[in-house]
């Protein structure tokens, strides 16, 4: 492939390129964090699957007590949120600066909606007497979704931060690394849920 590999987005290309330059969006080195997070979650998935292998009947019976409709709705909400954040990054690349905060806060709202529905779901489970200590499946369910929700809360806060800055026009096509990295982290939160949802709720 004869593309020019550009490492930093701050330097403009000096000659016309035959195809789009290969670059990793965002703050330098941040993708190492994303990769590390993915590896850790792969280990968590493996440990969960190992536990399920040890007691499939218990895991299946407990799985049936979960509300996959609500969680499925949450999946749609998170995908929509990711879409809006991706649109925000696209807008900043095109210097359509008015649209950026709208898309970012759209993403924030969807994130908060996820938290709301997740809380409702947790509320139902706790009210039914299901806690992390109930059995092996419930321990894994609360641990995995809990770690995910923690990621989501951090991501929502970061989105709110960059959303506020984007209202002040802090980001534009030549200065967008922080926005891009926050977006990348948000998409990671989405990716993890795309796997977690069927892993916990749909695996019969």
């Amino acid at each position, binding site marked *: 492939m004869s593309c020019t590999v550009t490492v930093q987005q701050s330097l403009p290309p000096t000659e016309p390129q035959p195809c789009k330059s290969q670059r990793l969006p965002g703050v330098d*080195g941040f*993708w190492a964090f994303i990769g590390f997070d993915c590896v850790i979650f792969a280990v968590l998935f493996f440990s969960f699957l190992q536990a399920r292998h040890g007691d499939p009947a218990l895991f299946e019976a407990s799985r049936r007590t979960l509300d996959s409709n609500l969680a499925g709705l949450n999946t749609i909400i998170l995908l929509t949120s990711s879409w809006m954040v991706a649109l925000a990054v696209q807008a900043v690349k095109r210097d359509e600066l008015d649209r950026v905060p709208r898309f970012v806060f759209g993403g924030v709202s969807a994130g908060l909606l996820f938290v709301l529905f997740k809380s409702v779901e947790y509320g139902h489970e706790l009210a039914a007497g299901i806690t992390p200590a109930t059995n092996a499946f419930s321990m894994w369910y609360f641990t995995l979704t809990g770690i995910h929700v923690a990621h989501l809360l951090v991501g929502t806060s970061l989105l709110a931060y960059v959303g506020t800055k984007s209202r002040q026009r802090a980001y534009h096509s030549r200065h967008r690394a922080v926005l891009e990295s926050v977006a990348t982290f948000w998409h990671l939160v989405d990716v993890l849920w795309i796997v977690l949802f069927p892993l916990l709720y749909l695996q019969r």
Partner: protein
Amino acid sequence: MEDGGRLETQKVALWCNYVFVALTAIGWLGIAHFILPARADLGLDATKVWYTQSHRMGVLVGCTIFYIAAGLLTPGSIQFGIMLAKIEGRRPVMAITTAVCGVFISLIVFFNCCAWVVAAYRPQTGADVIQSWNDWAWMAFLLGWIYLTIEMLATGIVELMDRRPRPMVPRWMTWFTFGGAIALFTAAGPAFTKSGPFAYHGLLAYYIPVAIWGAYISLTTWFMMKELGREGSESTPGVLHRDRPAVAAADRAPAL
């Protein structure tokens, strides 16, 4: 020359980290057999047998090696702090935090070794007492993740302050450090379970955090060692200074 002398002691201090990692692997994981430790759900009698019979000599020798290694983690951690303070400049709170947390861990590991030695010391001790000493040592060891997390976060924060074209630590390593720091929290699991990956013998509570710890110490030391090499060549007359340190010359000999 004074500067050269300081460089030598700094290198010795960094080398202490390498020796710590090596002795930990050989002594604690190997000789004391903590690569496959007595499981939390082994039961009273089997735990006593593990410490007073099957692994007694290994624990006594291996934990002796481990506490000696832990002592070396003190100068090693202080040197981490000094290297970071060169970047952070005046009022190096994060650099000092790194050093102090490392020293805390050095002391914690020392006490853990004492407890494991006590567990193996008198074969006639009651099984529940042996189990308690073992449990205490594991809890103090793994629940100390908080100090390592704070140390690693402080390290990463200072590394990000390094604005040179070639920073002391490459950015991908800094972000691995942040990721590792946060992933450590699974070491909080042992308080809540005796079996599975979150128990003190488990994949998520023990093996991965220890691997993260070993990688952080080894790799960070390696990059810092290279930096000292850079410093050495910069103070040699005639060598081109391509990477000027970010801090002012007055801070070359930091007064902490």
